[in-house]
């Protein structure tokens, strides 16, 4: 790592040329992960300042809007509990309406965080460091939103504890042979492990924030942060166990993240409904989850890097890499749609064939083709490098992917149910206003939590970003024997000048980073 980055880290800053002046071809891996020639202190400053400064007015505005929308969720839930699930559009053949669609949608989004943290960590993809904190937070909040739906879909929400194996006077136990119960375990344990993973990652950064609060003389803040930082000092004897714990958690979270959406897919695949009873469901659901999760990370990160001036930490290279993952997983998902069609034809089962013809041409054709175009067709734009590195296109595709993945779950759930085995019970399903408002309201919950996160928690993993900078490697320094560093590359800086800190990436307006850089220069 050090040998490749040290070559490119300071000498050239993303001028977009395909090769270095000495003729070495420029590959993706050689791009510096942190731009703008930042020092360790600059990185701390850049991230920490956002939760230390006075709350900006814009944040209050956004928070107020998010809380209001979350209030709509509260209202919809109150109406639901008061009247019963009859306020939703669910009818006789379609017993699983938007509630399940929205549950799978949110759980799917919740996969990217752990994927970025765990899977990319195991594959030594160091570029994950600048986005993993926010992606993990997003995971937690998406899982919280997801849990709203099955919790209230049980009808009598005050008896929801029946789902858990709690000893009770009726000596009743849950049915452990039901995929719906596996879901309870899978999703709740996924939420717990994601929280642990997120918190373990946060401990060193909370220590950083605590020490900054002490130096600023803000003792109440230091006490609160000190409580959560657990007395972290950055001792190497601690880092040793800490890194091992992080590695083990990543190793545990990887099969977990793959199992969660597999178990969610069992809810469908273990039943006998045509269109659901297929073995392709687990891998196809997991690919879809990664796809939708990355799209949501992209949507949030494009906004956050702009608003918080993090263009040097979340660079265009990060966006390009996420776009490649969106392209790959989108194509996998699209391939799965086509495979389903082929298998339906090849199986010779009349019901299975009808289910798929009906999906594409039946009363819900519009949902099917929205899904197809958003998930399979639009991401193909990312074959072109300039599109992958275009913020506008990346943002657009991230939105269409979110829409497409919602429709995927809609198509799977609704089209299979509305034509069941008995034609006399066939019916058309329409969601009601309360379905829509509840779904809309969960976005309020999601953004309320995300805004609180942006305000109070370091949104980029400070310690991890420092760890992937070239000057973090002890061999970066050539010592002349007296312990004083002498290096032939750019000197280790303590102050970022405006030119250095400005985003060097093409496609980002230079004025976006300049005020940030000026402030940084003064603040150090």
């Amino acid at each position, binding site marked *: 790592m050090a040998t490749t980055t040290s070559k490119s880290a300071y000498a050239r800053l993303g001028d977009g040329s395909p090769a270095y002046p000495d003729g070495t071809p420029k590959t993706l891996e050689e791009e510096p992960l942190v731009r703008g020639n930042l020092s360790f202190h600059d990185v701390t400053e850049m991230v920490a300042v956002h939760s230390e400064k006075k709350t900006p007015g814009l944040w209050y505005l956004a928070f107020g809007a998010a809380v209001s929308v979350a209030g709509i969720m509260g209202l919809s839930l109150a109406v639901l509990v008061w009247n019963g699930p009859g306020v939703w559009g669910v009818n006789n053949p379609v017993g699983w309406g938007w509630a399940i669609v929205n549950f799978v949608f949110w759980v799917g989004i919740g996969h990217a965080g752990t994927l970025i943290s765990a899977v990319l960590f195991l594959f030594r993809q160091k570029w994950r460091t600048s986005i993993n904190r926010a992606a993990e937070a997003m995971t937690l909040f998406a899982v919280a939103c997801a849990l709203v739906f099955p919790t209230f879909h049980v009808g009598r929400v005050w008896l929801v504890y029946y789902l858990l194996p709690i000893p009770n006077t009726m000596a009743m136990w849950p049915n452990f042979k039901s995929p719906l119960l596996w879901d309870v375990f899978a999703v709740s344990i996924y939420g717990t492990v994601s929280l642990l993973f997120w918190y373990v990652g946060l401990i060193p950064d909370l220590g950083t924030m605590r020490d900054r609060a002490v130096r600023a003389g803000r003792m109440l803040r230091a006490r609160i942060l000190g409580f959560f930082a657990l007395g972290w000092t950055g001792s190497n004897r601690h880092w040793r166990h800490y890194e091992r714990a992080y590695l083990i958690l990543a190793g545990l979270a990887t099969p977990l993240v793959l199992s969660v959406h597999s178990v969610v897919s069992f809810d469908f695949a273990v039943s006998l409904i045509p269109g659901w009873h297929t073995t392709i469901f687990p891998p196809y659901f997991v690919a879809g989850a990664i796809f939708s999760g990355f799209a949501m990370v992209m949507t949030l990160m494009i906004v956050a890097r702009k608003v918080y001036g993090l263009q040097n930490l979340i660079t265009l290279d990060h966006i390009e890499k996420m776009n490649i993952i969106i392209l790959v997983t989108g194509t996998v998902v699209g391939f799965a749609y086509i495979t389903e069609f082929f298998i339906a034809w090849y199986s010779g089962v009349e019901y299975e064939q009808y289910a798929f013809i009906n999906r594409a041409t039946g009363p819900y054709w519009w949902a099917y083709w929205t899904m197809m175009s958003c998930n399979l067709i639009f991401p193909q734009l990312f074959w072109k490098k300039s599109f992958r590195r275009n913020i506008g296109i990346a943002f657009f595709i991230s939105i269409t992917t979110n829409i497409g993945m919602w429709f995927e779950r809609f198509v799977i759930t609704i089209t299979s149910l509305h034509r069941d085995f008995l034609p006399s019970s066939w019916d058309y399903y329409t969601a009601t206003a309360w379905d829509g408002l509840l779904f809309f309201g969960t976005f309020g919950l999601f953004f309320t939590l995300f805004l609180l996160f942006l305000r109070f928690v370091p949104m980029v993993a400070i310690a991890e970003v420092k760890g992937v900078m070239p000057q973090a490697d002890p061999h970066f320094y050539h010592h002349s024997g007296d*312990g004083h560093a002498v290096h032939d590359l750019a000197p280790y800086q303590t102050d970022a000048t405006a030119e250095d800190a400005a985003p060097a990436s093409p496609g980002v307006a230079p004025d976006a980073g300049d005020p940030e850089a000026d402030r940084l220069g003064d603040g150090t």
Partner: protein
Amino acid sequence: MLDAIRTRLDERANQNVGLLAEFSDPGALYDAVKGMREKGYSRLDTFSPFPIHGMDRAMGLGVSKLGFIVFGLALVGLFLGWFLQWWTSAGPQFDWWPGAITNLAPYPINISNKPLFSWEASVPVMFELTILFSALGAVGGMLALNGLPKPYNLLFHSERFGRATDDAFFLHISKADGQFGRDATTDDLFDLGALAVEYVDHDGATDARALPTSEGNGAASALPEVAPATPSRSTGAL
């Protein structure tokens, strides 16, 4: 026995008493650790804002034992996952089941005379509980091995030390080290390129020596403060 525990606790409470040297960068810190170990120091620790690659080896630390804790808890989770499902759906029916804990009694349901329990259908829950217990073991074990949470740490007396979580790199030599001698160790640290060396104990941090050149007055002004601190330290720890 009690004395042994007391000595042990005292040792633990005072392990961070010693000299704290700041270095300019990870490379200098790495070389300093190697240098100090060559000079025979063993009770040393480094503090850095991020884990430094190769530092474990330089400090002579082995691989963390955390994996064994996690593996043990993984087996516990796996067993509990199996036991929970087997017990609730196929557990034995005892006549003598005490009334006070009927809530925990199994409840086998015969469905078409199918077997009451199958391990295949139990795999998802067993797997999930294995992961849950392992993850709790990884986090709890890491904290236990590190002795965290530790709200009081005498190193926090050093104002300089606050930057260890930002951009500063420290080497700490414990007073309990066999080689430790306040002046000699300070010299050794400065020889290896320390930017500044402080003596830290429960009463606070003092300059080990103002500058490497002004040896005489720096050591003289700092030394008297050490002597009275010793008794109060051991009582304070217990």
